[in-house]
């Protein structure tokens, strides 16, 4: 954690100096007043400056990255963790050997890990960010596979003139398929069933 101790004529002035030193904004730090300023006699004798300790708070993304690193290390895996963060999302990329274990069957383990890290990061404060974790580009590849599957099954539904139901998928995966088929006007898509068994149905348009 980065922190500095600064003094100034007033608390405000000391904080301003500290922020300039840290290159941080007021919203990114916590301020502890170590001593209040005192005027003293004639403004000279016994005058005491204000002293503050300003600490840069870890961002949600930094905390998420540290947690992921700790988790994979304790799983006996060695991976490189890269965090991208913006106002609404935290994207974490993990790369390394033997990462298949971290993905699991159809991404089950990866989804569980992502869910837990999301909970841990958004536990306290008001600020909330969506966490997405990817391992070795798995999610990108999976989305591409889903899009191809969607196109194939849409053709099938049209050919047979009957509805085709897909296997249960999570909200993200369903969204990818809905989006992929949105522009087609020979078929339409909807979801049915309850979580976690909700699935997509592709129906031919008459």
């Amino acid at each position, binding site marked *: 954690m980065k922190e500095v101790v600064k003094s100034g004529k007033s608390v405000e002035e000391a904080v301003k100096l500290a922020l300039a030193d840290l290159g941080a904004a007021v919203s990114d730090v916590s301020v502890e007043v170590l001593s209040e300023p005192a005027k003293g006699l004639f403004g000279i004798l016994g005058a005491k400056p204000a002293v503050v300790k300003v600490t840069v708070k870890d961002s949600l993304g930094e905390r998420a990255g540290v*947690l992921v690193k700790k*988790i994979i290390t*304790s*799983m006996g895996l060695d991976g490189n963790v890269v965090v991208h963060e913006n106002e609404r999302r935290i994207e974490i990329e993990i790369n390394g050997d033997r990462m298949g*274990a971290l993905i699991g069957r159809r991404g089950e*383990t990866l989804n*569980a890990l992502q*869910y*837990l890290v999301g909970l841990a990061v958004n*536990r306290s404060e008001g600020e909330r960010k969506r966490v997405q974790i990817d391992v070795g580009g798995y999610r990108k590849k999976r989305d591409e596979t889903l899009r191809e599957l969607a196109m194939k099954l849409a053709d099938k539904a049209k050919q047979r003139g009957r509805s085709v139901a897909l296997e249960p998928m999570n909200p993200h995966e369903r969204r990818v398929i809905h989006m992929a088929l949105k522009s087609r006007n020979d078929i339409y898509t909807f979801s049915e069933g309850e979580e976690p068994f909700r699935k997509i149905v592709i129906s031919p348009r008459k």
Partner: protein
Amino acid sequence: MKELVEILAKALVDKPEAVEVKLTEKEKSIVIELRVAAEDVGKVIGKHGRIARAIRQVVKAAAAHSRKKIVVEIL
């Protein structure tokens, strides 16, 4: 394995100092017992056990090569 459960639990609860993890190795299985402060139990189980299921999933993946069945119990 014990460490993994500890890291996960401590990241989820309000009172990380109250997290206790005990590992017992049996012939064909490993039993991990997780204890948290009473008010934190919901935070490691979740609605319909969703959080507990996610913890078990990650632990299972970590134990994949150990050939022993792994059980995470929340007490």
